[in-house]
């Protein structure tokens, strides 16, 4: 198998951090906040590495679009087993449409046979980049994947849907977006973290790709959602039912 798997990853505020809205309403505070690889992207990296380990793929290339600091998530991905990495450098915050334009250029240059990526980034919660990218490449898509099998030039993808699971069969090349149950990502071992430091990491200036990265959305404001006020503790199930009936009038 000669297939190359491209795995786009994103550096986001760590999932354990409760973000705070910036005082001027322009966004959220990211200064001094712990950053990590988007959890769904970790699942995508793991799946790509497993495909290579099973012999279904030849090489796993990770790519991110971001500032110099985003190198750390590329090193993490390589410590998990990715072979090499590409940083498309920009200091701007790009929308999924713009990121898809960048990824299309990279996928074309790399002649990727499969793009495996997280279904959603936990910062902007867009759940859109994979689908936009698939459309722009003219490739089929297997979104919200819980299982994948590569055979005979096709990929079969089990997809999480509202009422259960659906299976689709796609021609390759294709875009697959990873859902929670696809796998459990491995922890990078210390020797592998050391090894990852020596793996190739190429930096590409975003302007050199010549793609449209303009924003189509203007952020008017970012605000805190209304806080729920803390309720009361009750001592028994009977008291609870009484309150639900007479006070909340919900049952």
């Amino acid at each position, binding site marked *: 198998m000669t297939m190359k798997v491209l795995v786009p990853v994103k550096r986001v505020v760590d999932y354990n951090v409760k973000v705070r809205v910036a005082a001027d309403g322009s966004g959220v505070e990211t200064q001094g906040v712990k950053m990590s690889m988007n959890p769904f992207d970790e699942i995508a990296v793991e799946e790509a590495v497993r495909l290579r380990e099973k012999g279904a793929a030849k090489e796993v290339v990770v790519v991110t679009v971001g500032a110099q600091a985003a190198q750390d998530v590329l090193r993490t991905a390589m410590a998990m087993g990715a072979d090499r990495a590409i940083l498309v450098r920009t200091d701007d915050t790009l929308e999924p449409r713009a990121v898809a334009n960048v990824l299309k250029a990279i996928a074309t240059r790399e002649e990727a046979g499969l793009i495996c990526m997280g279904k959603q980034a*936990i910062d902007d919660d867009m759940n859109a980049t994979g689908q*936009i990218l698939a459309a722009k490449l003219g490739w089929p898509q297997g979104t919200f994947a819980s299982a994948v099998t590569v055979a005979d030039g096709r990929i079969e993808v089990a997809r999480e849907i509202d009422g259960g699971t659906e299976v689709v069969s796609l021609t390759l090349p294709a875009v697959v977006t990873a859902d929670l149950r696809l796998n459990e990502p491995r922890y990078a071992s210390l020797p592998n973290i050391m090894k990852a430091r020596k793996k190739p990491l190429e930096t590409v200036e975003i302007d050199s790709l010549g793609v449209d990265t303009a924003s189509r959305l203007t952020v008017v404001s970012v605000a805190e959602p209304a806080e729920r006020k803390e309720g009361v503790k009750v001592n028994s199930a009977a008291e609870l039912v009484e309150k639900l009936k007479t006070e909340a009038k919900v049952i």
Partner: protein
Amino acid sequence: MTALVLVEVENGAVRQASRSAVAAASRFGAVDAIVFGDGAQAAAALPGVTRVLSVPGLVNDLAEPAADLLAARAKDYSHILAAASATGKNILPRLAGLLDVQPIPDVVEIKDADTFVRPIYAGNALATVRSSDSIKVLTVRGSNFDPVAAEGGSATVETIEAPASEKSVFVKVELSASDRPELESARVVISGGKGLKDAANFKLLEPIADKLNAAIGASRAAVDSGFAPNEMQVGQTGKIVAPELYIAVGLSGAIQHLAGMKDSRVIVAINTDPEAPIFKVADYGIVGDLFEVLPTLEKAL
């Protein structure tokens, strides 16, 4: 301005989340609906819908032919909407890619024809964004828009050929058999977390769900641990619910879970840990062992 809504029909009835999307779309002007597979008649009965584009040949909601078809029709519309369901989230961003516009997912409020509010960071912030695209492609959260009624309209129906799909082929679907109401439209939801300790104990929720005609949900941790299937997951990366009553059993209330249920009208939490974050959003809390509380709750109902 005319809006086009991708309407999902299940067992002959329009899904509640799609009726909410029609309600949201009517804010922009006239509303057309598009239905894949059977179900054009159900969509034609929705109040506010003037025309239904029926695509009976496209039975499995495959994103590739669906997005192609929507893209071919897009120039007639100022806004194209769907529910923020698995189907909406699969097809609409692909459509946006074909149109080269930036989609606006999970809209919770419409300010005007160009300006929308959507949650980011698991609902810990609300972003108001203005779109400069000529066609707006959005998915809307059903729980934030009162659905239109299921009956009362009389739209015309136009039948369209389905485009072929060669790159993507439907293989099969496995739906969980359940007589319970669906999570997103249930009046009462009871959810279990890791505190239930194993998959078998999820059954402890059933007698209470039966009495309240409730849907059963699960935390991501419970799904991760294999206690419950993913379609039961409530949270940032699962289903977003806002029932009249939400009962959280043995779940701590992680940020990403709260993102999926904190807009419920009344929240009840049962947990052994008095410091669990779920109590911060609960209207009524019981600090105690769920294995003791659940049987007494069932009796008290």
